[in-house]
């Protein structure tokens, strides 16, 4: 019964989305307030009904209702509660439902928090958002019904893929979707601007909070995914340049470019057409990602629910959305007009450079991801592009971005004294040079790449602090004044500093975990010990046990380092329902580095193969990611408060305030 309610709610939300995608557009065209206001109500109603459907599906998973096909093939009564819930989105149908839930949630937030947005712009944005909703809701209702019944119902379910039974991965898809589905708002705002024939600084100011929040969530999602890969896949890698990973990286990169170019539109009303184009492209990358993951055009270790039939449907949606969007762009973009000019040595100049470089980076990843497909189609062969390609292309292109991003926030808008630039970045340059030389000398002149990267991360970290230092006049004014300034600084300044600082920390972590890593594989029996990376590792015992839905073998080790003793217990788990084995690595983590221990198969009757890794500074990868996401969220909070003050008076006459009660 509950499942039928869920299905009904989904069909109803499709109907609402259909109305929402048309009536507000007519309203905006005729300037009819009632039709436009329908957009707000519909957005909230559409979200409510999808949420109801989602709750119904969750309920089926919690009660292990195996008469539903998705529950039967993805759940199990013995599964812990957390994974019963995560099971809702651990399959194709449920994850599509989560997809539209988040899509509708973003629409609803525009309706609720976007009261200050000019009526026609809001109405059109919500209509576009609903059009995307119509496409994906139809996809679910007609091809991927999560509420399909099984008759007769099996007594037990097949269980969730054991690799996915992990807290990191349970939370990874929601954040990832919040990110890349969130970019739908960038698309909707961009298309609405094209329909209006106007995109100005007001438009950018309203669009930015949604773009920024999507970007921040995507950052968190990608970081959770890499953290999961790091400890679950059992060999200490954190990024594999896999097509599915790249599918989330591409919208992130373009989103990063978009966040920056939208800032230029907001402050200087220039780069308007470019920003609108980026808005369309960023979400298109999200759609392409969805297509890749679910259609099977590329081989990936992560691809799930692969089905060419579904691929056709998603491709059709992609063609309508992106093709339609870009077609509209070709027609209407010339009306958006030229912006005001600026000189090369200005903040705009640095941001244009940033955009060009990031778009090139995206193109690199795009090429690497789809090259096998192109080659296949022109009749050659199926191939796989691996990390060597990215090491040769992505990394050299990323370095100029890192160098440029320190100059940007320190530069003035429109026109700047270029003679001042070396002075302003002086401390960062000095710090970077010093640390690079120290690293080079410490390694005996051999580790030049590491020295360069240490220099770059110092450059980024000091450079981001300089942004704050300059604004609070640290050193130039008495400390009381600096403190006063620090307290009154706009949040946007802290946001920039944090986001850029995060990149610096991330680079530091990546370089430590890749260039300085050590690893060792030994066959160890109980009682034997091995010396590795300044530690003595002793295997105390090997235990067999049972988890809620798996059998396990746990090896208990003691690790002694400089008189400090700790115990680590990596596990290998076997899930009988799926006949799958997973590794649970044991990691001792500190700010200086991770010690990573994983066990493999038995070498002989008494010995296990044991893999040990030392990943210096690895944890800074994820700290850096968190700091970056925090920067994004701060910026979105910052713009929001700036929005309300000046615009409120324009809207005071409108019907905005009482409607919040609904």
């Amino acid at each position, binding site marked *: 019964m509950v499942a039928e309610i869920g299905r009904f709610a989904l069909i109803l939300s499709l109907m609402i989305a259909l109305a929402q995608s048309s009536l507000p557009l007519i309203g905006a065209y005729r300037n009819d307030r009632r039709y436009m206001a329908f957009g707000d109500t519909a957005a909230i109603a559409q979200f409510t009904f999808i949420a109801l459907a989602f709750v119904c599906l969750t309920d089926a998973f919690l009660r292990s209702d195996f008469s539903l096909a998705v529950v039967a093939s993805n759940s199990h009564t013995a599964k812990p509660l957390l994974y019963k819930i995560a099971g809702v989105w651990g399959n194709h149908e449920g994850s599509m439902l989560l997809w539209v839930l988040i899509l509708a949630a973003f629409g609803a937030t525009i309706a609720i928090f976007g009261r200050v947005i000019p009526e026609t712009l809001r109405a059109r944005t919500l209509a576009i958002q609903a059009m995307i909703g119509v496409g994906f809701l139809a996809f679910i209702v007609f091809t991927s019904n999560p509420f399909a019944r099984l008759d007769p119902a099996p007594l037990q379910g097949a269980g969730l893929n054991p690799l996915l039974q992990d807290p990191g991965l349970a939370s990874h898809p929601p954040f990832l979707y919040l990110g890349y589905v969130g970019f739908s708002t960038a698309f909707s705002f961009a298309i609405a601007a094209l329909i209006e024939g106007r995109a100005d600084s007001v438009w950018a100011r309203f669009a930015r909070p949604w773009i920024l929040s999507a970007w921040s969530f995507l950052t968190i999602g990608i970081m959770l995914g890499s953290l999961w890969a790091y400890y679950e896949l*059992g*060999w200490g890698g954190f990024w*594999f340049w*896999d*097509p599915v990973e790249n599918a989330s990286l591409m919208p992130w990169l373009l989103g990063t470019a978009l966040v920056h170019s939208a800032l230029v539109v907001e402050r200087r009303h220039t780069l308007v*057409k470019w920003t609108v*184009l980026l808005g*369309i*492209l960023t979400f*298109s990358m999200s759609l392409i990602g969805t*297509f890749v993951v679910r*259609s099977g*055009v590329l*081989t*990936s*270790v992560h691809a799930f629910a692969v089905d*060419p039939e579904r*691929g*056709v449907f998603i*491709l059709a949606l*992609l*063609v309508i959305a*992106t*093709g339609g969007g*870009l*077609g509209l*762009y*070709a027609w209407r*973009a*010339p009306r958006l007009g*030229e912006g005001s000019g600026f000189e090369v040595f200005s903040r705009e100049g640095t941001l244009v450079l940033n955009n060009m470089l990031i778009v090139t980076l995206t193109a690199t990843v795009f090429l690497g991801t*789809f090259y*096998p*497909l*192109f*080659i*296949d*189609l022109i*009749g*050659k*062969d*199926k*191939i*796989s592009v*691996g*990390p*060597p390609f990215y090491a040769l292309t992505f990394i050299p292109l990323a370095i100029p971005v890192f160098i440029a991003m320190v100059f940007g926030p320190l530069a003035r808008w429109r026109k700047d004294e270029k003679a001042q630039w070396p002075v302003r970045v002086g401390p960062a340059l000095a710090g970077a040079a010093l640390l690079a030389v120290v690293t080079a000398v410490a390694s005996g002149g051999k580790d030049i790449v590491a020295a360069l990267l240490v220099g770059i991360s110092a450059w980024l970290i000091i450079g981001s602090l300089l942004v704050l230092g300059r604004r609070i006049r640290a050193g130039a004014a008495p400390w009381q004044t600096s403190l006063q300034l620090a307290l009154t600084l706009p949040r946007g300044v802290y946001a920039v500093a944090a986001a850029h600082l995060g990149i610096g920390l991330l680079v530091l972590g990546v370089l430590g975990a890749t260039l300085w890593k050590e*690893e060792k*594989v030994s066959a160890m029996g109980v009682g034997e010990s091995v010396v590795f990376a300044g530690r003595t590792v002793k295997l105390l015992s090997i235990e067999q046990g049972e988890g809620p839905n798996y059998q396990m073998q746990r090896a208990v080790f003691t690790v002694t380092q400089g008189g400090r003793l700790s115990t680590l217990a990596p596990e290998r788990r076997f899930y009988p329902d799926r006949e799958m084995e997973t590794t649970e690595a044991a990691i001792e983590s500190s700010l200086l580095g991770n010690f990573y221990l994983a066990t*493999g*198969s038995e070498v002989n009757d008494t010995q296990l*193969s044991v*893999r040990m890794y030392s990943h210096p500074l690895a944890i800074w990868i994820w700290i850096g990611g968190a700091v970056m996401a925090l920067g994004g969220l701060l910026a979105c909070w910052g713009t929001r408060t700036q929005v309300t003050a000046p615009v409120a008076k324009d809207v005071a006459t409108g019907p905005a305030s009482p409607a919040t009660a609904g």
Partner: protein
Amino acid sequence: MLRWIVFVPVALFAILAVTFGLGLRRDPSAIPSVLIDRPVPAFVLEPVKPGVAPFRQEDLKGKVSLLNVFASWCSACRYEHPTLMALAENNTIPIYGLDWKDEPRACLDYLERSGDPFVSIGGDMSGRAAIDLGVTGAPETFVIDKAGQIRYKHVGPITEDVWRDTIAPLVARLEAET
């Protein structure tokens, strides 16, 4: 700004969309190799596992075998790995490995982690042998007959289906040949 430049994105996207469309419809079966029914080109490759003899094309003579082109950096290879492991564990057919443009250490690491289905592995760091074999990407698998001739080339991962439907029947036929 030039008027036509606004049409560039939509034009590029049209090409991409067509590519995706064809990608969905393409026939995943392999393109035949020019080397079919010809002897395996001569090669001598450094062994990846330390302390064993180099891997030569003569090693392939005298029995029906598979020559699998793989690399530790190749994600599609991970996908077919379980199938290879199952074949090796059941002693179904000897599998020889050609480790393509890969660090021997990385390769050993990979095999230690996920199991080693290979009788012998030659490291082709320079990619020379792979060029002679007409390899354009990993994974690729050659079916070699008793005379040491290439009889079939499969491009892309060997899944259970590929093995059952395509390769296993061929191998059975080749085994019957004298």
